[in-house]
């Protein structure tokens, strides 16, 4: 009897880690390798019992987190985040680095080839990840310019499924067509973490074209959870935030509410007005300079 129970547990442990669509093939191969008829019948009975009672619970895919950083950084937060997540769970964390991206290349309003090159670079790395981890659920954690790359990547690679996403300090346009993307994670699977002291998304939006202020104002769409924290642009990378807010979401999709979401102050009127006009600084700054110079000349004359 003990031997039968041992075999029962052995078969259960063996098959629970096999994809459901592969189980039949696996049991048939296993049975064909057994000569003893009694043993063969026992193994088959165990398998059918486990299968019939649902004791072979649905195969749970392992999780892989891909981190995508922002500009003017070597993404030092990667190491802290990787260490925290991997030491507190079975999740694998992989960095996606695209090298140092300077502010000029980031800003150039009409020459977008530098942005495009970074998107292509990340695309290659993401494809490599999928090749090496074909059975993993992929969760993207992106910061700042990394959110822009993520949006472009998903738009250009609609065959690439992502399970969940955490965006922080996002500079993706607020009206970006996430909902049109077939590979956009559904059912409360995207979080947009916003720093209430973060001005960079507004600056990115107003200083050039192609970016948005979603990291300051939110996406305001039912398909993305905008969550506010009392933080500046790069304050997200603490063990406290990783453990309290990000890890439950990565592991179970649990969205832990932040008190700052309901207690936050209304955005400044001027910031709200300014952020309505993408690239407005491109016109305002030269206008101020020309006006200033003209005024100066007029005063001199």
């Amino acid at each position, binding site marked *: 009897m003990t031997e039968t*129970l041992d075999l029962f547990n052995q078969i259960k442990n063996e098959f629970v880690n096999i994809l459901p669509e592969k189980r039949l093939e696996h049991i048939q191969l296993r049975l064909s390798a057994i000569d003893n008829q009694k043993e063969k019948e026992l193994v088959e*009975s165990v398998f*059918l*019992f486990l299968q*019939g009672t649902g004791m072979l619970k649905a195969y749970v895919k392992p999780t892989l987190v891909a981190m995508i950083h922002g500009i003017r950084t070597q993404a030092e937060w990667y190491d802290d985040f990787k260490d925290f997540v991997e030491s507190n769970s079975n999740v694998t964390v992989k960095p996606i680095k695209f090298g140092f991206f300077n502010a000029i290349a980031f800003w150039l309003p009409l020459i977008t080839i530098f942005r495009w090159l970074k998107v292509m670079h990340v695309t290659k790395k993401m494809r490599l990840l999928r090749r090496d981890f074909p059975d993993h659920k992929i969760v993207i954690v992106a910061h700042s310019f990394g959110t822009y790359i993520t949006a472009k990547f998903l738009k250009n690679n609609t065959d690439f499924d992502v399970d969940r996403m955490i965006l922080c300090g996002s500079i993706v346009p607020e009206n970006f067509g996430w909902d049109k993307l077939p590979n956009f994670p559904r059912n409360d699977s995207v979080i947009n973490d916003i720093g209430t002291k973060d001005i960079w998304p507004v600056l990115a939006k107003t200083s050039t074209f192609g970016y948005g202020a979603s990291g300051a104002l939110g996406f305001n769409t039912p398909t993305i959870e905008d969550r506010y924290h009392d933080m500046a642009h790069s304050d997200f990378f603490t063990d406290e935030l990783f453990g309290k807010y990000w890890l439950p979401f990565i592991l179970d999709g649990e969205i832990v509410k932040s008190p700052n979401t309901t207690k936050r102050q209304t955005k400044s009127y001027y910031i709200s007005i300014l952020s309505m006009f993408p690239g407005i600084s491109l016109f305002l700054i030269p206008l101020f300079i020309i006006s200033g110079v003209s005024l100066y000349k007029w005063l001199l004359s």
Partner: protein
Amino acid sequence: MSTFSKTYLHLMQNNPTKKEALEHLAELYQEYQGNSKALFTLPIFLDKLSLTPSPSSFLIIMFLEDKGLIKKIVRVESPALGGIADYASISDVPKVVFDFRTGLDIVVTSENINVLYSLTESIEVFE
């Protein structure tokens, strides 16, 4: 006392740990009058015997099979619902089965397979 009752009595006396399941099976026999065409899915069959999905329940099911009280059928089911082919063993299940319900061939996976139990018509127990 009929042969049927004697067999059960004998089994219950020799296997006290399985007594309750045997009593429930005897009730099932009386309810269905040993109709071997009555098929039960495993969860329903366990429920009828007041068993829960567990290794100890597996031992009881194995015991009932060994004693010839119940018979196992491996059924391939159509995604359009309903059985399309029965087999004595999972080793006999082919990779592809014609689904007469939809007119298409289906690739069989473990999700298309259901194990069913029937009551045997005659009981022949030798202890």
